[in-house]
């Protein structure tokens, strides 16, 4: 087990690299699998210094559900943003919203920021590390409190569960 972890400090990352390589190569021949495996072993080692404290994926099931939630939200919210972009602009209520973070880990807070940006209607502007705030710009928001509650319940809570922090 210790040998396994010395060879593959981040087994999931290694698997993702192998899968990505095979996907890009477009074939599952012996040569490509071998090449992907070598990359899967070498790349996590080379990039280790970028991951001072690699987060552990504790609940893959919850992670999968979160990914589905985000995709669903992207599709639904895209329609809403499309309507607002084409409609009368003076009826928009754009504003900044400060979302207090419960997340301790910088990497996971970054994931949350990415999710907020990818779901239409909100863009994460800044992560305030001292005050543990996520500064979000929303295109059209009537009730900032409701937006904060949605972000915290829909994305932050599952993220906390996924990484058990």
């Amino acid at each position, binding site marked *: 087990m210790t040998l396994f972890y010395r060879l593959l400090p981040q087994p999931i990352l290694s698997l993702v690299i192998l899968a990505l390589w095979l996907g890009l190569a477009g074939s599952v021949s012996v040569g490509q699998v071998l090449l992907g495996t070598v990359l899967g072993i070498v790349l996590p080692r080379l990039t280790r210094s970028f991951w001072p404290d690699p987060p552990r994926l504790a609940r893959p099931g919850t992670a999968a559900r979160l990914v589905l939630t985000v995709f669903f939200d992207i599709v639904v919210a895209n329609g809403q943003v499309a309507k607002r972009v084409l409609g009368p602009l003076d009826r928009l209520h754009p504003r900044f919203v400060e979302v207090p973070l419960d997340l301790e880990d910088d990497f996971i807070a970054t994931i949350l920021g990415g999710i907020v*940006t990818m779901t239409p209607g909100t863009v994460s502007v800044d992560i305030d590390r001292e005050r543990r705030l996520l500064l979000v710009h929303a295109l059209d928001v009537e009730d900032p409190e409701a937006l904060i509650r949605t972000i915290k319940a829909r994305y932050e809570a599952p993220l906390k569960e996924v990484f058990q922090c």
Partner: protein
Amino acid sequence: MSGEMISEAVTSLFVLVGGAFALLGSIGLARLPDFFTRLHGPTKATTLGVGSLVIGSMVHLSTQGNGLSLRELAITLFLFITAPVSAHLLSKVALRKLGLKKGGPPDAA
């Protein structure tokens, strides 16, 4: 209706939807009044616009008889990782440079 026709219809549908959302993103970029609202346009175009185009491409290539095409999934993954980073960098610079006037963060207003 032959299988080929169905796959072509599905491909066209995804390409059209993708093109429509890419166009909407650009319209948003042109119409919206200030930097931060404009930022919403392009991030949206990448998510559903490119996402839909990529699904169209996957359907098309996978029905050509060369097996399932997975390159598109890698494209989507890279886009979803890089798009928020560039949007984040842009908005961070804007926050410092433009300062905060109308509609700034609650504490600076």
